[in-house]
């Protein structure tokens, strides 16, 4: 097991390296640069800017400098757009926000999604099943950029219960709408995957055996069916968790949360090479990490899987 984990982590290093170099090259290939602005900057000023941010160096040298700063000093450099903030500052401000509403969304999506899926599977073809499937289809077809304005219309403009945007770590009223807007479509996917895999498991031989033994159906479902039924759900949850905690641009923009989902998209639009790289590396690292976590959980749930 430990050897396996070490092996996986060893592969992660070249994977990240490829990711960094590929993003770096792609980004520099995009037309325009961080200092292209509506008010054309005179050549002498542009030269100073390029010198300050190292853009006057050959590309291979820029990559090498960047990598050495990241590896040796954990320094992702200054933002090209936010002139008095470093990439570390921007991630330190935005990541806790997305991590908070992302984790809450994850918990909400898993709890509601799995319950709906399991209920639907057990009560197959009953009104409960139709109800659960109906909800999950509804949630799936309502994208968050539609959800968000609807929520604001109801809870802010009509009922005056919740603030229409902004963020506070101390006041949960600011968290509710971002969490609902972000979690619904994940919740729907989880419900669908749970339902279909649960149905499959319920029809399998070991459940039939358990029933034949006369075990109470509660025990059958919780102890024998749920565990294997959750395997496909878990492989979905790894990447889903990463994309939730790194935020959603729609949620960040609509609710002005100040999360890094918006910073990521803005950095691409502004050609803010440094922020773009920083968040890409964060996303990449988390994705690799949580895929590994998923694989470890797999082994723990399903004894057939051995590393």
């Amino acid at each position, binding site marked *: 097991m430990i050897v396996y984990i070490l092996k996986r982590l060893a592969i992660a290093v070249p994977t990240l390296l490829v990711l960094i170099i590929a993003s770096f090259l792609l980004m520099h290939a*995009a*037309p*325009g*640069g961080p*200092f*292209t*602005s*509506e*008010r*054309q*900057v*005179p*050549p*002498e*000023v542009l030269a*100073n*800017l390029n*010198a*300050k*941010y190292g853009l006057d160096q050959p590309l291979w040298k820029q990559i090498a400098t960047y990598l050495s700063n990241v590896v040796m000093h954990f320094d992702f450099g*200054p933002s090209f*757009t*936010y*002139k*008095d*903030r*470093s990439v570390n500052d*921007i991630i330190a*401000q*935005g990541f806790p*926000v997305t991590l908070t509403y992302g984790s809450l969304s994850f918990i909400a999506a898993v709890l509601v999604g799995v319950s709906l899926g399991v209920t639907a599977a057990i009560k197959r073809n009953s009104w409960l099943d139709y109800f659960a499937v109906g909800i999950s289809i509804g949630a799936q077809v309502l994208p968050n950029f539609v959800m968000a*304005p609807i929520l*604001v*219309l109801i809870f*802010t*403009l009509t009922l*005056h219960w919740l*603030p*229409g*945007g*902004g*963020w506070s770590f101390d006041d949960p009223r600011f968290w509710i709408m971002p969490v609902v807007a972000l979690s619904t479509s994940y919740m729907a996917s989880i419900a669908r995957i749970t339902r279909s895999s649960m149905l499959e498991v319920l029809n399998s031989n070991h459940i039939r055996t358990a029933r034949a033994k006369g075990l109470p159906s509660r025990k059958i479902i919780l102890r024998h069916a749920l565990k294997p039924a959750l395997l496909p759900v878990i492989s979905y949850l790894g990447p889903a968790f990463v994309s939730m905690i790194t935020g959603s641009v729609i949620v*960040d*923009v*609509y609710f*002005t*949360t*100040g*999360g890094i989902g*918006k*910073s990521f998209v*803005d950095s691409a*639009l*502004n*050609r803010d090479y440094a922020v773009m790289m920083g968040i890409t590396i964060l996303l990449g690292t988390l994705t690799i990490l949580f895929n590994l976590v998923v694989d470890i959980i797999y082994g723990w749930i399903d004894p057939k899987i051995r590393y």
Partner: protein
Amino acid sequence: MKPLIAISAIALMLGGAAPVFAQSSHVPAGTKLAKDQSFTYWLQDDLKTLDPDLSTSKDGNDVLQQMFDGLYQQDDHGNLVPAMAESFDVSDDKLTYTFHLRDEKWSNGDPVTAQDFVYAWQRLADPKTASEYAWYIELMQVKNAHDVIQGDKPVSDLGVKALDAHTLQVTLETPIPYFRQMLVLSSTFPVPEKVVKEYGSDWTKPEHMVSNGAYTLKSWKIGESIEMTKNDKYWDAANTTLTDLKFIPIQDLNQALTRYQAGELDFVQTPAGQYPRLKDEYPDQAHAPPRSCVYAYRFNVGPNGPEALKDVKVRQALSYGINRDIIIDKILKGGQKPAYSWTHWATAGFKAPDIAYAKWTDKERMDKARELLKEAGYGPDHPLKLRIMYNTSSDHKKIAIAVQQFWKQLGVEATLENFEWKVYLDKLNTQHDFDVARTAWCADYNEASTYLDVNTSWSDQNSGQWSNAEYDKLMKDSKTAADPQADYTKAEQILATDMPLAPIYDYSLPMLLNAHIKGYPFDNVQLNWYAKNMYRTAK
């Protein structure tokens, strides 16, 4: 004198005192003020910096001028009022300005000195700072600015000196009549040398930031908000009524409108085309004051532009063919005005020339345009084909479609090309790869040269690469002319004839402003507002 008595005494002197506690001189006597003196302002885009030497946007300027006092500010009508500069002397050759500074303190208690200005201006020009707005100090004609920016001379050679703690001397390369008007912009604000040197680029973080204006920074969360509180050490704190300011960046105007309706914003720009409806719904909150920016279609007459546009007849025909009234009445609907000159109509001192086609009827313009195109050799068998380029945005698209239709009536086949912002800028300013491009220009200061300088052959902003010797000469002469306004009018006449661009409309700022917020400068064409002059009335 104890502070409280001092405050009351000042208030009494200024004549606006209420009996119980001092009320600001900006507040008319008898006004019932709200207990909560906060103001929440909408920003289209997140600020990129709070460092005056690095700031590059109008929004940034709006925010920074609450926190810093530069040499001058503007009153409600856009006229200069002294801020740090209590008085000034100018030499006979108009090349040396000496400013006598107010005795003011930074928010950490240190005195603001002339050296803080010297340091700030040197820092703005310093190649090591690499400020995108370093060109502004060149535009101000400060001596040696160009060489300092280029790194050919040390920053100490810049034409700015502290004669003593309260006397600042500026030397110019060439005299410019509007020099003092340029000193309102945040790029010219002082910065606290000691603090900047101690914390480097971290000096603008709330825990370190020191400023000399009516407000100090409380928090700044990128993408969420910027908050400020009243600076009690400010020299005019007794007359500052609003106590808390908050700026919230919301890109989408419809969503900003929702937040306004929810009472979370006191100010918001209305989405395109929605102004009339909102004016009906909120008559006491909807306003559309003029705003000093112009929207135009620029023709590419440079080497990368199409052959057709090098013919002045074609350019004239295309400009005549644009029906500005329809664009304003049917698409924008927010108090904009049709533009036939490049300079915004409300610019201080500017007198537009008599532009004939501005007065023609729709039919006259179209007939004349057809005639010109025919003379240029275009007709049904040989239609003129052009590309209209704009950056991706539904508002620009609507205008482009309208123009495409207007030109279709002239037999011109125009295709629309939209690009993401940075790609568009690259094509416009760097590659000059376009036929006709949507552009806009906003005033840096309230004087016509801020617009007209753009079209000189040496301007970096002249993306259509138009060059006209007579125009260049006029603009050069205007710098030393006793009355530059006459030159500006002549320059506009050349633009209207040689038509390097087709002006389309002069901006307004269609907005909603909380009816309880008073003192917003609607008549200031740059809409430079100062929260210290504003207040909130009780409901």
